[in-house]
């Protein structure tokens, strides 16, 4: 690390790592939630990569917890069964709730039987965050295509801030992994990833690739490195 980058008052380039409290010498119209303004100057709030694009300054965080956002598709593990509601661990500071009414539109059996039969403690589900407001537990729904109980496979947990890199630009990274290994990979926005292969060794390779992405996501040329990594391993 050269001394120059440590100086605060140099012109910051794009893709530079910033730390909390660091002054950003940029004039921008819009800033994202990881920056704040004090006395007309922009300061970083979190550790991350600085990204400057026409009039917008943003920080791509390197670490952090998952905060639910309405509309996110997440993977969760059933933790507890309450009357008419499941308690779901979604790898977040807030435990999610999945009410019975958000799981099915049919009502044949008695509701009590269904809540016990449908999902058991330990089941993995894909769900969508339907409601999340400041300070209340997020409400999930499994009504929708591809949502609901997931069977088989290996659950990989990575830092949720790295999920955009796992998906890649327009899904390039995830389709690369799926094409090279012939595995089915389901990505939850909360950092839970379900890898489903017919071969345990392949699952391990995908696991290693995902961990590599988590570790090296801030270094340039990630897609190429993952490509060579997968090609080497799949031989």
């Amino acid at each position: 690390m050269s001394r120059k980058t440590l100086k605060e008052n140099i012109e910051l380039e794009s893709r530079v790592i910033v730390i909390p409290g660091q002054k950003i010498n940029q004039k921008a119209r819009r800033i994202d939630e990881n920056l704040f303004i004090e006395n007309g100057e922009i300061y970083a709030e979190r550790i991350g990569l600085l990204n400057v694009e026409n009039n917008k300054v943003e920080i791509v965080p390197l670490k952090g917890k998952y905060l639910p956002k309405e509309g996110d598709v997440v993977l969760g593990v059933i933790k507890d069964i309450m009357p008419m509601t499941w308690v779901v661990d979604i790898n977040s500071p807030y435990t999610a709730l999945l009410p019975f009414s958000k799981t099915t539109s049919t009502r044949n059996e008695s509701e009590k039987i269904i809540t016990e039969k449908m999902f058991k403690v330990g089941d993995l589900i894909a769900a969508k965050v339907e409601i999340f407001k400041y300070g209340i537990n997020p409400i999930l729904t499994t009504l929708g295509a591809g949502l609901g109980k997931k069977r088989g496979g290996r659950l990989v947990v990575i830092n949720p801030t790295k999920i955009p890199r796992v998906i890649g630009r327009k899904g390039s990274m995830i389709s690369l992994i799926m094409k090279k290994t012939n595995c089915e990979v389901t990505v939850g926005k909360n950092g839970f990833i379900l890898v489903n292969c017919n071969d345990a060794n392949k699952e391990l390779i995908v696991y290693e690739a995902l961990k590599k992405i988590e570790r090296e996501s801030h270094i340039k040329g990630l897609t190429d490195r993952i490509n060579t990594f997968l090609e080497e391993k799949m031989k």
Partner: protein
Amino acid sequence: MNEEMSYMLEKKPEKLFRDDGKRLSGRDLFELRPIKMKVGILENADGSAFIEWGKNKIIVAVYGPREIHPKHMAIPTQARLRCRYNMAAFSTSERKKPGPDRRSIELSKVIREALVPALLLEKFPKTVIDVFIEVLESEGGTRVASITAASLALADSGLPMKDLVTAVAAGKIDGKIVLDLDSAEDMYGEADLPIAIMPRRKEITLIQMDGKMTPQELRLALGKAIEACQQIYEMQKRALLERYKI
């Protein structure tokens, strides 16, 4: 810092300065002990840091924000910060009785209060952020080293912060104002003034004093301590950037 550490030195030194004007440790008046910082040393913690400040060795681990238990501890508008300062049984020359005692409970509190102003706790209502500080080896000035390392661990965990927190102690030994007291100077000196600041705006988040100083001496000690904090802040920045070196 108090009687619990008094067994660290067998006998009281006659003078705290050598004949050539330097301190017993060979340092000048305003010279800090060598400081080493490393960020991200623990795999399972959300954020972690290790600091070696002279002979002090301290590990800090941050977990959170996470769900709070018991539930009634939750604050509806913001996250709760919990700090636990603990000295290992082998951290002093005579075995320390393990577990929290009067001193470590107080230090946990002052460290918590020194860190809170830098954090944006209102972004995570009803949750808790746990900071565990484990002192592996101590040589005086563990509270300032702990604060410095804890703010690094908090930043490493990806929590939003307005600034880092940097701390250093000033003091008075044998009638002279010095910086960064070690255990002998702390025990047999005349005054001890640990401070913590947020370096960007020079806001003081912790100030304690033990002993006596004149107002002029206090002003000098404070000024020197704030100057030293800037120096430590640069080290903190370097340690954080080192973690994600490209």
